[in-house]
């Protein structure tokens, strides 16, 4: 045991290429045999685990969308079924992680913080857009069907291409701008409590793109800014510290052809938003702002 060199993953390809040219030594054969047996054991353990889980009463059935365009034989989309032992308080993300760690390490999905802040793990769970880490298994009907978000290109398994969503978000210039600075060099830019309350909900966006995916209009019109971007525009347009000039600029962006007027008030975005942002309300308010901005009676 002590003579064994720890395996280095970076060098493995190199050493594999070397061994091909060399005559396999006794040690290599032994190691090969050892590896093979370990793999066998692992496979057996996995099978046992799966059997035990399937037999166990307190397991949940997870049907997960699988697709990998880079591997031949996985290009055909399919659903894999995993049986995951249920624990109290288990979320869809927990179940997916269990399935990945126990049964199939190739199962791919995004996640980072696991507490509904990073916005990485928005998925299509049982027919609606959900944040996997915020969705309790106990609230769902079995079998739980997990799919990638609709209306975006799928990269692999549950991972979608987010580039388009980010483009739309950037289109509304989602950062604070102002040319109305307070007097005095070290003076702070103060916001009234009322104004803070007004934009409070809109600041909660975590860029998960669940709303964009749920929107019927965004699905048919790719130029449409989408609920998240318009909400972002609302967050800054309604911020009193930005001043009139910048607000005019923001209104010009959102009242374009593919801006706020595409919204048909289906309320899908408001319903799926994991942060409970009243998106439709914000879009409607911006519509009224845009109208008021353009109506002149004198």
């Amino acid at each position, binding site marked *: 045991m002590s003579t064994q060199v720890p395996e280095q993953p970076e060098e493995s390809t190199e050493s594999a290429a070397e061994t091909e040219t060399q005559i396999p030594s006794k040690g290599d054969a032994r190691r090969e045999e050892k590896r093979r047996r370990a793999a066998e054991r692992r496979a057996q353990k996995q099978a046992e685990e799966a059997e035990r889980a399937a037999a166990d009463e307190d397991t949940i059935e997870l049907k997960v969308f699988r697709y990998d365009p880079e591997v031949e034989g996985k290009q055909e*989309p399919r659903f894999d079924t995993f049986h995951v032992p249920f624990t109290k308080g288990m979320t869809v993300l927990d179940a997916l992680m269990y399935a990945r760690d126990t049964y199939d390490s190739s199962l791919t999905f995004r996640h980072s913080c696991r507490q509904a802040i990073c916005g990485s793990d928005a998925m*299509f769970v049982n*027919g609606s857009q959900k944040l996997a880490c915020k969705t309790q298994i106990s609230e769902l009907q079995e079998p739980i069907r997990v799919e*990638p978000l609709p209306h975006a290109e799928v990269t692999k398994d549950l991972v979608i291409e987010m580039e388009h969503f980010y483009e739309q978000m950037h289109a509304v210039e989602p950062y604070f701008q102002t040319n109305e600075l307070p007097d005095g060099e070290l003076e702070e830019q103060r916001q009234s409590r009322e104004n803070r309350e007004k934009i409070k909900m809109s600041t909660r966006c975590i860029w998960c793109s669940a709303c964009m995916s749920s929107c*019927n209009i965004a699905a048919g019109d790719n*130029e449409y800014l989408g609920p998240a971007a318009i909400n972002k525009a609302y967050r800054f347009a309604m911020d009193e510290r930005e001043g009139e000039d910048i607000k005019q600029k923001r209104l010009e962006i959102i009242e374009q052809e593919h801006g706020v007027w595409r919204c*048909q*008030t289906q309320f899908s975005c408001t319903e799926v938003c994991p942060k409970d942002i*009243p998106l439709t309300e914000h879009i409607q308010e911006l519509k*009224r702002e845009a109208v008021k901005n353009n109506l002149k009676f004198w």
Partner: protein
Amino acid sequence: MSQSYNRGLIEDFSRWREFSAGMWAWIFHKFTGWVLVGYLFTHIAVLSTAIPAAGQEAAVLQAGDDVYTQTIVTLEELLLVRILEVGLLAVAVFHILNGTRLLLVDLGIGLESQDKSFYASLILTGAITVASVPTFIAGAF
């Protein structure tokens, strides 16, 4: 549709399976709107065939022998027309009620209860339609 993404093989996956109240309201509103537009054109087309009635003498009109009265009476004799009239009322009532709902939504009033107002307009539409049945179908059978 779908200009900048191509899901290729998996396009059919992950479609909405559950429609929420707002989406149903939207679909019904579009549908009833098109039905009303269609009805308006048919209405104008049918009634314009009865224009000559305007030039007829008072006695003929009194007796109900003119083209207009004839057209209406013939149409009302058909059971299908009677039933379609009930449908037309239902469509119009829903469109009016949901239109009012959308007006409130546009004004930003009661957005939290948008689903309830949709269900209310559905129920009210149903009630009014059922109540209208005796009037429309009377004497049809």
